[in-house]
């Protein structure tokens, strides 16, 4: 059930939200003010956030790649016409 909650959490989570949360956690961890178990929980969360962000980034890069290719093709066709004209 915990797993599910996390997943839902991630589902709603934006990349930027995750990054912001990550920032907060890193800051807290760096401050060394957290209790041990809290540190571990936060560290754990940070790992999940990193994973989530990395995935999002990969997905985004892939999409951009795709778009770039599509557009390059469309362009090639388009410019071909123009130069031929």
């Amino acid at each position, binding site marked *: 059930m915990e797993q599910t909650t996390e997943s839902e959490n991630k589902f709603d989570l934006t990349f930027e939200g995750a990054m912001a949360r990550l920032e907060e956690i890193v800051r807290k961890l760096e401050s060394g003010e957290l209790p041990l178990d809290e540190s571990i929980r936060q560290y754990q969360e940070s790992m999940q956030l990193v994973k989530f962000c990395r995935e999002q*980034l990969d997905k985004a890069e892939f999409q*951009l790649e795709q778009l770039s290719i599509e557009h390059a093709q469309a362009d090639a066709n388009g410019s071909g016409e123009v130069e031929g004209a």
Partner: protein
Amino acid sequence: MNEMPTTVEQQQATVVTVTELNLMIKRRIESDPSFVQCHVSGEISNFKHHTSGHMYFTLKDETSRIRAVMFAGRNRRLRFRPEDGMRVIVIGSVSVFDRDGQYQLYVDDMQPDGIGALYVRFEQLRNQLQSEGLFRADRKRPLPAFPRRIGVVTSPTGAVIRDICTTVERRYPLAKVILAPAQVQGPEAAKTLVRGLRQLWSLEEPVDVIIIGRGGGSLEELWPFNEEAVARAIAQSPVPVVSAVGHETDVTICDYVADVRAATPTAAAELVVPHRRDLALQLSQANMRAQSAVYALVRTYGQALSRIEQRPVLESPLRLVAVQRQSVDYLESRLREALRRPTRLADKRLQMFESRLARIDLHQHVVRSRHRMDGLEGRVRESLRRTVIRMNGQLDKHIGKLEALNPLGVLRRGYGVVYDANGVKILSKVKDLPAGTRIQIRVEDGTVKAEVISDGTDDRVGEQIRLDI
């Protein structure tokens, strides 16, 4: 002679030099208007025409005489040669020739007498009309450029009309000459001249310009053109008037009043009408100017149109698009550049977090905590251990002392302690030990049970022994 000094003395206050006196006289005379422009009649004598051109003579009558001078600038216009014995009328001013102390007449003009009276009238009329402003330049009207009808007031039989007609016909046959016949000399002449002018004005189809004139003649012959009536009629003329009276040297009042003075009738006609040759030339020029102007206009417009057509934007309209296309290309290239930026930035940031996370050593945290805990544990244990040792020490000390203080320690020296049968109560008094009492005796190495055999007696030995010690 004797009186001289006194006279001299009396006049001492007002002594002047001769020069000054002559100057005073000169000023006095010249300031008197009756000596200015006065008309004087007399007979010429002692006439001398000096090589300088000046004329020197004496003017005299039966009873008197006056010296006169007429400077070259004045006498050049004389229309007769003055000579001794000639009766003349002169116009001039009196002044003093200060070198000689002589007053004399400075002659401006001179006419032979007889006609001299006429001359005076001429001058008077001229002054009169001039003062009325009839000769003013601003009264002079321009002649029409292309007169259709030219009125001429002159003798129908004279050379004047003939010269005018010939000239007009030759130069500008478009103009019609309308002759108003008039007598040009004699007592009736002035009247007919005025009538001629009026006739021409009152025509149903008015004339555009009038030429009035006659041929040359003596002053008497030209006199009608000096009549006031004629002059005033000319001044009243609704159309411009050209006077052509006598020869060039003859000047009449008419000439002053007329809008234009012509030296001769032919000259008058030439002034009044243009020459057809000039007109033809003018027309050709106008034609050429119009043509070149209109052609130039068309050419200019054509060039302007060509220039516009050659403007790059019209000649190669694709430029219009080219600029925009560049903009699109530019934006696209920027877009491509920006493509990876968001992910790259995000990636960089994420990596930063990761590296910061990597630096966070929770393990170390645990190790430190463990150390701290171990330390605390050790301290707890050490603390307790020390307490136990200390307490043991204290206890041992007590125990040591107690060992020495054992009240039964004397037993080792041979003492014994008598207890009751139960071994509870110490019985140290004889009275407590009646015979038969069961007792326990504790000695060094144990306890024995015994029974008192006999009652004891008071024994002080023990005390003594104790005291001995």
